[in-house]
């Protein structure tokens, strides 16, 4: 596609500019509502809100580095099935866009019914840290500082989440439209890029001034990516070292209490109910006793490592690395680190990238007649 437009920022307030952008969207007859992060009245960050009335856009804060949950799951609820509830424009972080695409592949939502608008993402704070950052309480100056720094560094004593610091997909090129922040002066103006025919259509209808690509965004992005890739490498190395055998892995997971919050927060863990919560894992008392006798002792609750390994098998190829698992963990198990590390290798193994392309089938749903012959000693 490649059309670029400019979202003018007046009064040095990009938030207001984006609110105005949302208002324009709502004004378009085709859009029924806008899904966007909105500041919580009590402070502490944002939560997604489905806004139908332009009046209600005043608290919408798409730039706030708060990421209390992955809105992809919310968007699936708004777009599911053939039922035409109208088109929803969703302002999402890149990882939310990719999660949503994964979910659509699994029939949980429909790309048909959503206009995906992504923003260049400098990262977000963990839920615990989110409230400490003034920018998440409506302080524009703090926010501008944060945006200018590209999320790098410490703000009000906190850093963006590690998931974000190691994220190599900070632009939502998979969305219909992307709002460009990188390399731009947020007080002056933002870019709007169309990535799909539908995005192109909307861009035309929104009647925004045309912009040219002066390369500043790419340059900023490149720098950011270099840092993040380095951070990612380091995280992978650390995690790999910390989980290099079963003993270390169980230490790594030792704080886990089988609450399954990680999977509840995971955008791509789409099961209505996790198998680990079903009767499949309702073991009989004699089974526990028999295991205990067999091994001398077993950890209670059982199936902790089993759960995490199975979840890795089930969703690591769909993992978008948003970090909500760690965010949700009550006991600070570094779940994100583990999953992201493994996901990198499983996705690579199948030449797959979660959320990259809606047309790309999930690796475990397809096969080729001639592949992976090395598994069977070269015979296929």
């Amino acid at each position, binding site marked *: 596609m490649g059309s670029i437009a400019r979202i003018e920022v007046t009064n040095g307030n990009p938030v207001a500019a984006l609110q105005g952008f949302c208002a324009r969207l709502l004004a378009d007859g085709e859009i029924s509502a806008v899904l966007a992060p909105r500041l919580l009245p009590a402070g502490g960050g944002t939560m997604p809100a489905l806004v139908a009335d332009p009046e209600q856009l005043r608290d919408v804060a798409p730039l706030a580095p708060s990421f209390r949950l992955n809105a992809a799951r919310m968007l699936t609820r708004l777009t599911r099935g053939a039922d035409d509830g109208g088109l929803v424009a969703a302002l999402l972080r890149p990882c939310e866009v990719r999660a949503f695409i994964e979910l659509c592949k699994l029939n949980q939502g429909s790309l048909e019914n959503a206009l995906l608008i992504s923003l260049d993402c400098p990262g977000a704070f963990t839920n615990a840290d989110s409230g400490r950052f003034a920018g998440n309480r409506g302080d524009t100056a703090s926010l501008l500082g944060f945006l200018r720094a590209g999320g790098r560094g410490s703000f009000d004593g906190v850093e963006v989440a590690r998931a974000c610091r190691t994220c190599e997909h900070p632009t939502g090129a998979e969305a219909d439209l992307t709002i460009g922040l990188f390399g731009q002066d947020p007080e002056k103006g933002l870019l709007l890029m169309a990535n799909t025919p539908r995005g192109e259509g909307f861009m035309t209808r929104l009647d925004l001034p045309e912009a040219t690509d002066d390369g500043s965004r790419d340059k900023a992005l490149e720098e950011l990516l270099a840092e993040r890739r380095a951070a990612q490498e380091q995280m992978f190395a650390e995690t*790999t070292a910390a*989980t290099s055998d079963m003993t270390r892995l169980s230490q790594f997971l030792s704080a886990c209490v089988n609450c399954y919050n990680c999977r509840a927060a995971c955008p791509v863990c789409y099961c209505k109910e996790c198998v680990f919560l079903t009767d499949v894992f309702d073991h009989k008392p004699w089974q526990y006793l028999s*295991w205990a006798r067999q091994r001398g002792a077993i950890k209670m609750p059982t199936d902790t*490592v*089993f759960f995490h390994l199975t979840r890795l*098998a089930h969703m690591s190829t769909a993992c978008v690395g948003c970090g909500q698992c760690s965010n949700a963990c009550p006991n600070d198990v570094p779940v994100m680190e583990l999953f992201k590390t493994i996901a990198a290798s499983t996705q690579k193994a199948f030449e797959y990238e979660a959320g990259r392309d809606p047309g790309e089938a999930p690796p475990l749903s397809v096969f080729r007649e001639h592949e*992976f012959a090395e598994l069977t000693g070269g015979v296929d």
Partner: protein
Amino acid sequence: MEELNIAPQTQSEPVPGAAFEPAIVAFVCNWCTYTAADLAGTSRMVQSPNVRLVRMMCTGMVDPKYIIKALLGGADAVLISGCHPGDCHYINGNYKARRRVKLLMEILPRFGIDGRRIKLTWVGASEGNEFAATVNRFAAEIKELGPIDTRRLPLL
């Protein structure tokens, strides 16, 4: 409802003078490999006693969690064996199995579970000798590797 006899399984009798005897769980398909295993048995081919066959209808139904469960439960290795490509009774189950094994090979070895402990093979119905040889080679290899880590850990 009648009362279920809940006496747990007893520990096996110790084998006199036993060295490390690996426990291998083999998921075999009903149509090819199970037949080959039966042929190996009825032809009295010498087979390693370390392998426990779990007959599945097709390798395509081997859920990754079964393999994980076995390895966490103290199996020193897991064998998945089915029909040759193109030969699957259910058309293409073995291709799907291959992808799942590939997936696990990307995950489990990262946690110190040696990739050699997970083996996928194609053994056709008439290949009793091939089955026996596969099993024996595999058992020998695992003996060499030693017991799996999980055996010592109180986790499941």
